[in-house]
């Protein structure tokens, strides 16, 4: 009885493994067979991926994902991911493709297959009251600056420019503290700040400094999916050439970023 049970498990595992290998052999065939592509996108990062008032996920990245689905002639399923689980979702095959504001880093390339060229790029900037008249990063010296706990640029901002970092758990708390006057500025991704400055609620605020730490974003497929990888590479080149990224930025209220402009010209 015991042996039988063990045998059964072993058999199931072997079977699962062989199907898995078959599936992983080519994810494109699998997507077409399923009729749906599952794409991991952000749902809390306006305007790159966020929930509309009716609950559906919209934004620049979901639209890019839709392009891929249209090209393959399949339906799309958005899977909301966050920074701490996005690579795992892709690794475990819960999503076929991940476009989730991920900064392209060498150690991440070991876990997932990040597609070249990079589709986007962003850096660090601050949101601050216009009335403070901040011009240079060094103007932050000695001032309390809100941040997000765990962001890599906190240390740099305080070490290089002498700002006193006041870091909160999430963006909502940091924005509230900035509004209440507990800090002089909020240091965060420039792509997110740009969207805030467009918000009428933040009318008196600006993004006054030159962006630093500009880093490219990478979309990713599973390791070993060479055919899908090559296809996505072609799609990204087409996005840049046709000005699709620039159009989407304009559509979602983002000033055209230097990165997107350069990629379009080349």
């Amino acid at each position, binding site marked *: 009885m015991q042996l039988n049970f063990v045998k059964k498990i072993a058999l199931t595992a072997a079977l699962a493994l062989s199907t898995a290998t078959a599936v992983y052999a080519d994810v494109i065939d699998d997507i077409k067979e399923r009729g749906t592509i599952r794409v991991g996108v952000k749902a809390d990062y306006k305007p790159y991926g966020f929930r509309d008032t009716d609950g559906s996920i919209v934004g620049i990245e979901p639209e890019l994902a839709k392009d891929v689905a249209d090209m393959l002639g399949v339906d799309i399923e958005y899977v909301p991911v966050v920074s701490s689980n996005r690579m795992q979702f892709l690794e475990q095959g819960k999503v076929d493709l991940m476009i989730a504001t991920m900064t392209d880093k060498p150690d991440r390339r070991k876990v997932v297959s990040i597609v070249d060229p990079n589709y986007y790029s962003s850096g660090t900037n601050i949101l601050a009251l216009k009335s403070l008249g901040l011009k240079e990063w060094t103007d932050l010296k000695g001032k309390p600056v809100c941040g997000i706990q765990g962001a890599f640029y906190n*240390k740099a901002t305080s070490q290089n420019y002498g700002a006193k970092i006041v870091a*909160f758990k999430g963006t909502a708390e940091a924005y509230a503290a900035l509004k209440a006057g507990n800090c002089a500025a909020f240091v965060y991704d420039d792509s997110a700040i740009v969207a805030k400055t467009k918000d009428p609620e933040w009318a008196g605020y600006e993004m006054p400094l030159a962006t630093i730490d500009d880093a490219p974003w990478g979309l990713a497929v599973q390791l070993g999916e060479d055919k899908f990888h090559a296809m996505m590479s072609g799609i990204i080149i087409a996005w840049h050439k046709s000005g699709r990224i620039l159009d989407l930025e304009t559509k979602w209220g983002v000033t055209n970023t230097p990165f997107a402009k350069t990629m379009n010209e080349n």
Partner: protein
Amino acid sequence: METFYEWFLVLYEDTGINLPFMYDDYDRGRILNGLWATIKLSAICVLFSVIIGMVGAWLQGSPWKVTRRVVNVYIQLFRNTPPLVQLYFFYFAVGILIPRVENDWGGTSPLIDSFGWAVISLSFFAGAFNVEIFRSGIEAVPKSTIEAAKALGFSRLQIYKDITLPLALRVVIPSLNNNLVNLVKTTTLAYAIAVPELLYESNQIWSDNVNVTEMMLFLLIAYFVLVGILVWAMNSWDRSLKIPGFGQ
């Protein structure tokens, strides 16, 4: 001293045990700041919460119904809500209602900063428990002792401060000890409103260096030592208050 610090760099290279607050000046500054903020926050909150406990227990025995009601409402409110919710409430909800003052960087900010709110919130939180703790001690003082004091012409305040409280103190120290230990541990919640205490600074360090395991171990030991010092102080106070025939 410098060689001592460098030894930790060697330790990191040889074993992978990364303690950047030992060899990196900047991170050492962060940890020392955090440690100082935790000690300061704990000491101030312990002091205020004990005062609140003593005063609250006295007011609870007030002949006026209104005073007793107010103390009871305070206890229910602060004892029955989570301290983290209280911190958020004070900092984000009350914080925007209080007057703003001109600050030194050219803007206006609320009169009370995150550290101030942490002191207020945590003192009242632990104070609510302390009121009940002191009450239990006061109720343990024999009625006949108080009647004797009344007969000798002591006023209500005199009876409380010279007779009831000193006797009650000897009864409540073990449970007061418990509550104050909890208070010191609860100061870590101030991390949520960005008070740069030990947990907050440690979080900054492990985010930059990805040495979560080492920092967790360090935090555990640090709080064990800090609370250990408090417990030792409370125990020696307990011993020094010993009087024959009462309590022990």
